[in-house]
């Protein structure tokens, strides 16, 4: 995932859908059938229980992007679609990582301090940390965590909202 998240082929779509059964399956089935690549995906209900919001990062060139958006829009439960640019939106991901901390605990604490990360679990010489941030920041943090020795790592799909101004 590292270093790819900023390529020009990545487009963040925020898709408002009806909160009904199988909506995610319809979206996934469309991507599979038309051979579009999903880079990351995050889904959750909105504050209005009738709707969910899907944030999809698609991995396509500009011209297929128009097709992706139009085909998504044809799905009956899709209410609205908006493309969010990196500059025009606030984008966040969450990272959880278990690292071999050894005798480098203080360096790890410094890293977490710089990025408002937290230790969420520890034991047997290992520490599980969580950090939330913009995708590029997480790329850099992931690289630095690598120097400690990553045992397991999980990142969420990206979520995003448009900037206010």
């Amino acid at each position, binding site marked *: 995932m590292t270093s790819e998240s900023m390529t020009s082929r990545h487009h963040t779509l925020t898709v408002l*859908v*009806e909160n009904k059964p199988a909506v995610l*399956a*319809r979206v996934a*089935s*469309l991507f599979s059938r038309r051979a579009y690549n999903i880079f990351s995906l995050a889904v959750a209900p909105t504050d209005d229980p009738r709707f969910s919001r899907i944030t999809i990062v698609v991995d396509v060139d500009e011209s297929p992007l128009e*097709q992706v958006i*139009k*085909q998504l829009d044809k799905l009956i439960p899709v*209410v609205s679609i908006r493309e969010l640019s990196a500059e025009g939106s606030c984008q966040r991901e969450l990272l959880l990582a278990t690292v071999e901390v050894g005798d480098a605990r203080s360096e790890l604490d410094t890293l977490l301090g710089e990025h408002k990360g937290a230790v969420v679990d520890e034991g047997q010489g290992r520490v599980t940390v969580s950090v939330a941030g913009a995708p590029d920041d997480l790329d850099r943090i992931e690289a630095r965590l690598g120097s400690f020795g990553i045992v397991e790592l999980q990142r969420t799909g990206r979520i995003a909202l448009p900037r206010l101004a």
Partner: protein
Amino acid sequence: MEITGAQALIKSLEMQSVEVMFGLPGGAILPVYDPIIDSSIRHILVRHEQGAGHMAEGYAQVTGRPGVAMATSGPGATNVVTPLADAFMDSIPLVVVTGQVPTTSIGTDAFQESDITGITMGITKHNWLITKAEDIPRVVSEAFHVATTGRPGPVLIDIPKDVAQSTMEWYWPTPDDLDLPGYRPVREGDPALVREAAELLLAAERPVIYAGGGILKSRASAALLELAERTGIPVVTTLMARGCFPDSHPLCLGMPGMHGTYTAVTAMQKSDLLIALGSRFDDRVTGQVGSFAAGARVIHVDVDPAELNKVRRADVAIAGDCRLVIEEMLAALDALGLPHSADTQATPGGSPADAPTGAPAEAGSMAAGLPRERLAPWRARLAEWQERFPLVYNQPEDGSALKPQFVIEQLRDATPEDTIVASGVGQHQMFASQWWRFDHPYTWVNSGGLGTMGFAVPAAIGAKVGRPDKMVWAVDGDGCFQMTAQELVTASAEQIPVKIAILNNAYLGMVRQWQEMFYEERYSEVYLSPDLPDYVGWAESMGCVGIRVEDPADVAGAIDKANQINDRPVVIDFRTDASEKVFPMVAAGSSNDDIMVDPSLENRSRA
């Protein structure tokens, strides 16, 4: 009023003015079949659920109303998958109702359980799994609304048995009650774009109207005729659009594409403006996309915005209903000062001598001159191609072989001109499309996008149910016929007098043609035998009249005999020449510039 879900379903179909449905009952759909006994809706009992789906398609294609089919869960539902995929490709409005195992059993691999909403997700416009009886009237309303508006298409409603058996308080939803917040089909086109399109129309030197199935779906034939006649722009009609513009009209160039006429294909290649109306740049029309109409600007009108810029980038892309957009274009042409058709009688394309010579008196107001005048050289070129590269075949007089094209011509000339023709898929379909003369909309019923062999027999039955006042002929192949022929039992039992012409060449003819041309005549698994089955005996066993014709001299007589039989279906087994190939032809993936004409015309000089 408290009624069961099953009763609510049938009542909802009645509220949608459904007059007929095609289906076959089974375990999970049993509760729904009980109220059918008391319903005003005619139910036609098919012999295989695929037949129900294709009948509903045929019915929908000729009436413009949604076709309704019903099947049970599991295999009943999966048997309708092919018609759903077919209707999805060809934008045919269908409402298919399937039974499902009880909600308590869903997900347990219960008897006759299949995830039909999952299976059909990619081949329906939308589908619903109903979980509460009280949702039935609303979902049925939504289903008909979605199937018939915007770009039409098939929808499926899956009803678990316990939902059909439980009770609900009857109501009928108003349009405001529909819960479709994400569904907003487009209607009118953007006026600025329409104006831009109209200006391009008037400035073009070599324009072609590329009319697709959307003309028929939007009931735009009359508007198209007016547009063509007022501008003098020639028209090609795709396989899905045959009949939307009269073949006998001087501006009609016939069918484009892989087996289109030389003139239709070449006109598009050489044009400077393609006006695509309800067509979708299908690969069978474009051939190799990069070299398709390379010098043409493109106006593309489609009710489905996703079709715009999908295959070919349009210079003017208008999302809208074809009929409404054409009417807007006509108004824009008025505003630009184009006189009405009374002043611009269409020029016959038959011969260059017919091209207009004198400019009309009022032409002075338009800087670029009237399109009719400016297009004269273009139409003269087209007329020359038509003369040099007509459709041809040679019917030997010694009776040594019966040519399929000859059969189609005889059939065409012996039946009323508004006869409905259904076809399967393959050589016979191309011969029918090429050699019939379609002068009326909604008289051609075929499987275009999906290419479903076996479509013709059930589709013809559905068409005859929809238009009992018209003569309905299916032109079928022997391979196709064997796939769905059992529905002739349905036709006999229900007294639906369709007529079937089998072009029996004892081969999967189109595959044979490709093997001959592209696989060094290595014929792999394409021979079927002319006598096995015995088509006449089979037809008679299904309650039809069966006739065999081997001699060209007997063709007309057999057709006359069939035309006089109106109390049962008729099947004619025409023994046709297996060596006959469909020409012209553009090989798959080739450029339309490399169109192969009939070998007898090969030496003629090209455009």
